[in-house]
């Protein structure tokens, strides 16, 4: 079991390295914010443990943990979306060669 989990861990690390291999400066901040939202997945830990909790302290800590995780997830995705909203309806800044073909498509996205 632990070996399987470590294998998954290592493979996930390589996926993570690979996905971010090249990214324009402009997108550093949204990308950081987006990955930030993804690690909010720890909220699952709070959900999984809630039914095993005993006593007021554990319940209170877990409610706070779920709250923190939820803030991380929802806030993270919303903030990222707001940042990226600034890029919509604009032609492609990084690959100007493709701007003609993609500008129209990007413009059609909802406001």
């Amino acid at each position, binding site marked *: 079991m632990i070996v399987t989990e470590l294998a998954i861990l290592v493979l996930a690390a390589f996926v993570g390295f690979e996905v971010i291999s090249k990214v324009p400066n402009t997108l550093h901040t949204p990308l*950081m*914010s987006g990955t930030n939202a993804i690690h909010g997945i720890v909220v699952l830990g709070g959900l999984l443990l809630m039914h095993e909790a005993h006593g007021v302290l554990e319940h209170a800590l877990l409610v706070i943990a779920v709250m*923190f995780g939820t803030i991380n997830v929802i806030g993270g995705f919303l903030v990222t979306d707001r940042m990226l909203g600034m890029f919509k309806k604009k032609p492609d800044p990084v690959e100007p060669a493709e701007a003609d073909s993609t500008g129209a498509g990007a413009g059609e996205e909802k406001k």
Partner: protein
Amino acid sequence: MSTLGTVFLQSTSFIDAMYIVAFSLFIYGMSGLTGPRTAVRGNKIASVGMVIAVIATLMTRHVLDGSSTPWLIALGIALGTAVGVPAARNVKMTQMPQMVALFNGVGGGAVALIAWIEYRHHFGGDFPLRVEIPSLFAAIVGSVSFWGSNIAFAKLQEILPGRPIKLPGQSAINLLLLLVAAGSAVLLAAGTHSQALFVLGILLAAAVLGNMVVLPIGGADMPVVISLLNAFTGLSAAATGIALNNYALIVAGMIVGASGSILTNLMAKAMNRSVPAIVAGGFGGAVAAPVHAGAEGGTVRSTSAQDVAIQLSYARLVVIAPGYGMAVAQAQHAVRELERALEAKGVEVKYAIHPVAGRMPGHMNVLLAEADVPYDLLREMDDINPEFSRTDVTLVIGANDVTNPAAKNEPGSPIYGMPILEVDKSAAVVVLKRSMASGFAGIDNPLFYEPKTSLLFGDAKASVSEITAEVQAL
């Protein structure tokens, strides 16, 4: 409750299958986030993955057992939504960086709390090492991330001063704290099951360590630090996943940990800084060299909006170098107006975008895009630097450190080696500034004392509007 359907839906295989769908969506969404055209969709895809992961977890057998459990879960989610949604919706564009820091911090906090609960459950009983070690790791790293992020937030929000704060013997203290946290962890793992050791030794030492590590780091390096702490939180989430036997947590946490460390490196490289140097900046006397005070006592030349308007109108090429001041004053629309007014007079206008102008990479692009400035006018640092020598006037709007020639000329300067916009090469420089206060890094800027530089004091938005009016009146 025990129909065949429910049994199937609650089976581990089905839940795991949903997790696989969820983290596939994370990976797909994240790869979308690396391109400007696919970024918006990528973010949405990742958020769908998160919804699936949460639903899968809630469907897991026993998770909703107990009369109060569903309500407590609902309470936590409701509180989180009540805090997170307005915070994310109402935050100003200028405050995005600290918001990201805060969201990252609460994520780290959640990790630390979950590790604490996990420890309490196994306390005194059966605590296999494969659960215990990742739990302890998660407790330390999550706690460091929580407190470190809060300090980063406080610094960016200017609750704390942005300049480095250091105690004498800082490195010794940090090392000691790390030893206390790690030592407690080792003792616990070796079988000394003690509640106090866990809470005091690990959570508190890690908390103080988080404070201590981030406090000495200067404001200008903060984006890199936030990204680093983001990677930390990812790693600690992955550790929690191992402790809880949850594949979704392992994969999502590790991907964030890995991509976050790459991203941290990319950001540091954009500033020509190395990550160890930034973090170590807080650890020792490496940056003890005093700031060269040569520019002090020099005189600055202040100017009027009318003079600037004339200067700009008769130029051939004007480069606008925006910085945090433009963001604070929300001057981007006014700047766009000025650009149009100048273009109407046949002046060529370009924008020089330093990768870390403002307080986050991409900050300026976001603001100027909001004001409908065409992308082809935005030039990245490496493209625009050769052009300064043929620029008639460079208009620096609330940028400071990213234009500071000390980064090139003064080896003693804390920002020495950081690539800058070489605005000092243009024929004339006009700087719009609120006051003579130094930039976020807390360093004086010799540029302001150069004979070809003139300063226009005041709120950036008001100044730009005034200049625009004068240009149009000419």
